[in-house]
């Protein structure tokens, strides 16, 4: 006896809901080709399709910065960008910061200044800072605050983050010449 019918309901459901579009982009130096739902956000593309869980979702409306990634050199909140907008783009996420098996200077300074507690906002802060230092290797305190004011942290009180960014900038200028 059949209680209810579920034969190919799922496929039907998916087919009816989703017109797929193709997307090509470079994420952390790797070229990605995928076919996706055009309503998918960049955040969910990174997390659900690429399984890059380092990028976090906290507010889902571009207010907290937890989902910040770098797209074509600019820090963006990936929760309010459609994945398809990243077609042809170059994306850097927190997973792409360490190189050759070594964490970056910026990550080292976040550790040594204790610029994190629960760590949930940390990937977003790292990416906003990375974008800042890439365009301005010697930012003033005001410029740092301006660049990071869109990232919320409830744990640290920001002072350790400010210190870590300053120290990382200084070290990068010396060590990465």
């Amino acid at each position, binding site marked *: 006896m059949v209680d209810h019918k579920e034969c190919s*309901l*799922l496929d*039907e*459901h998916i087919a009816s*809901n989703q017109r797929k579009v193709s997307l090509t982009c470079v994420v952390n130096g790797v070229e990605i080709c995928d076919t996706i739902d055009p309503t998918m956000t960049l955040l969910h593309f990174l*997390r659900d399709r690429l*399984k*890059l*869980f*380092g*990028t*976090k*979702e*906290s*507010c*889902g*409306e571009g*207010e*907290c910065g*937890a989902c910040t990634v770098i797209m074509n050199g600019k820090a963006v909140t990936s929760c309010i960008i459609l994945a398809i907008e990243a077609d042809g783009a170059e994306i850097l*996420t*927190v*997973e792409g*910061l*360490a190189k050759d098996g070594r*964490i970056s200077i910026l*990550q080292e300074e*976040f*550790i*040594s200044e*204790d610029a*994190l*507690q*629960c*760590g*949930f*906002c*940390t*990937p977003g802060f*790292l990416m906003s800072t990375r974008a800042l230092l890439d365009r301005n290797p010697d930012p003033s305190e005001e410029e*740092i*605050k*301006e660049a*990071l*004011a*869109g*990232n*919320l*942290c*409830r*744990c*640290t*009180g*920001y*002072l*350790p*983050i*400010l*210190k870590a960014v300053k120290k990382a900038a200084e070290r990068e200028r010396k060590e990465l010449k």
Partner: protein
Amino acid sequence: MDHSNYQTDYKHVGQPYSRKDAQKKVTGQAQYAIDLDLPGMLYGKWLLSPHARAKILSIDTSAAKALPGVKAVITGEETDILVGLYMQDKLAMAKGETRYQGEVVAAVAAVDLQTAEKAISLIKVDYEPLKPVLDVDEALDGDILVHEDINELKHVEGVFFPQKDSNIASLNKAKRGDVDKALQEADIVVESEFSLPAVAHAPMETHVTIVQADPYSNRIVVWSSAQSPFALRQMLAHSFKISESDIEVNIPFVGGAFGGKAGIHLEPLATLLSKAANGAPVKLIPTREEEFNQLPTRAGMRGHIITGAKKDGKITAVKVVYDWDSGAYADYGVNVGKTAVYSGIGPYDIENAAVVSKTIYTNKVFSTAYRGFGHLETHWTIERQMDIISQKLGIDPLDLRMKNLLEPGSRTISGELISESSGSVKDCLAAVVKEIGWTGRKTEEERRKEWATGKVRGKGFAVLQKAPAMPANTSTSVIMQMTGDGRVKMMIGAIDYGQGANTTMAQIAAQELDLPIDRVEVVENLSTQTNPYDWNTVASKYTFMGGNAVIRASRDMLRQMKDIAAQVLHSTADHLAHGGGYIYHIHNPERRIAYEQLALGYQYPDGSGIGGPLISHGVYMADGLTNLDHETGQGKPALVWTFGAHAVDLEVDVETGSITILKVASAFDIGQVINEKLIYGQICGGVLQGLGSAILEGYKFSPDNRLLNPSFTDNKIPTMKDMPIEVVPIYIENPQKNGPYGARGVGEHPMISVPSAVGNAVYDALGINFHVLPLSPEAIVLGILSGKESILCTDVNCLPGCY
């Protein structure tokens, strides 16, 4: 802050080690509940009541059930799961009636989030909106009862006291001496009222929960962003009337908690959905809007205080009534109310005192624990009142406090004796006023001069106290094992949600065992299946209690090693010592055995072995605490007090009303610094969270009690632009005799009394006493424009919900 400035006498205790999980957190490897992806996992979504109070006339779920991909649809009609913590007053889902805008009315589980959201949009509910209980005044009138069955509600008896036919979930009180007589005999009597709105915890990770509930047995497996795995297990067992051992709770990394993830939240709902979906794991991810609307908050509070003093500044009497706007359900709110009694007059020795605290039901989002557990709120009352008394008496606020603060030999309102071992609030206050260069209040003339420049500086300070608010029999435990390479792995019962418990405990073990810090590991990602019991990771109690348990586990480990080493070295354990990874003979250090030779049992050259794998444990149970007498509040509630003080130097822009915090000096008598870097982080973070409550944050409700600001756009928390220019942490180290290396907890304390110090500094700047938080630019400007010296709620045209 240069972390190498702090000096310590110990090899590991006091060292500013980096937190052990930091590398995982900066590389994106740390996995939080939101990152977990289980085979066959479904996604849940739920429908919230749009009304603060309404009758549910009917719910039509047929269209949602018919949507392909939907695996379960449930409503409160089908279930009677009670989820009360101290009061059995809450159902997992509303049934027949909703009591706040944000209460769960129906829920679905589906193959993906979009389908779940679509299904929710297809559910039709017919409500009959009812007149809600808007605020504490309406609640105390008692014309409408939020819980009509209040007389029958089951609760923890003898600790909480619901009042018959009222909206008072608990009335707690304490008294000492004869307050009314002392007030009559006082030279001056000052009566004031202070209030503050509800605020959000705003952890960056919302209350994400996954539950898999076996439909064929009682077994329930939980993965949750929670801070109290064992309390959660106990409450879930109680709700579903099953055994605790049927339940497995797993806690991955937790993205912030602040008290809001203590107790039980979405787990019962996820359990019901999983059961309805034939045992598939169901993941619930609250949106930020749901986090504000649905999940609990810090209660709003009104404190009414009457103080009597002699001309010389000796305070002879104080009478306080705290009314907590605790929302629709009691949750931890009743315990906050209880704590406000025994800690309700602050760190002062006042011979005649009476405190009444009422946790009050209203038709708003309910309240729970929040960093400070009521103390930020009570100290807003106490410490602003102290400043006003000093103004009236013409005594410097520093002198007034010093004359009345607790010291060895004083007794608290609950009759506890303060000793040399209790720490010193006077040392804290002296240190912070020195740091900001306090020389006394501004004169009216000085204020006028500065006013002309458009910006006025002000300095102010406030003291604070807090002890862990916990049951008298609270306990914790630790298991320690040695691996074959002589390293140590520990399992503890606490959650490291960023406060650094894992690193702190590793440091204590490293100190006890004399091992390098990288050879001691605290196992991350707790499971109730393997980790030993701890009551709750709350209340700033873990460094003290967990630290003591780790010391015991370490000493037990050393004793076992010495027992075996004594046989091998043909000696006795009494003649053996440890250090540098060896057990050695005290008279001949070359007679020694490395830890790794003992770790799995010692093997003789002929192949035979003695001993066995090294495993030890340590427990700590609160010692000497008692429940409080209901009439007098007398008893022993505090395991350990931590005292502190903040001093603030700020600037008010008299045109825009905005406040710039120039400097905050914060001192805490923590007995012994265990990790300077982590404590600095607690202080910076707590101070800014306190500043959020002081100048920025607060829930706003519409005239029908709907939350108007459920987003970070409208319910702002501080950003990097709001932080103080300078935070100076000051560590006072008067040791606590029974603390680990003399240490006391300090997790919550940095937040407490920050608004009080800001309010006092604003008075110094403007000569205006503000009584209502937050001190937003709008409130400051309206205060200035009113031309009054004392700004009450009505003066600033508050929205309903802010008194």
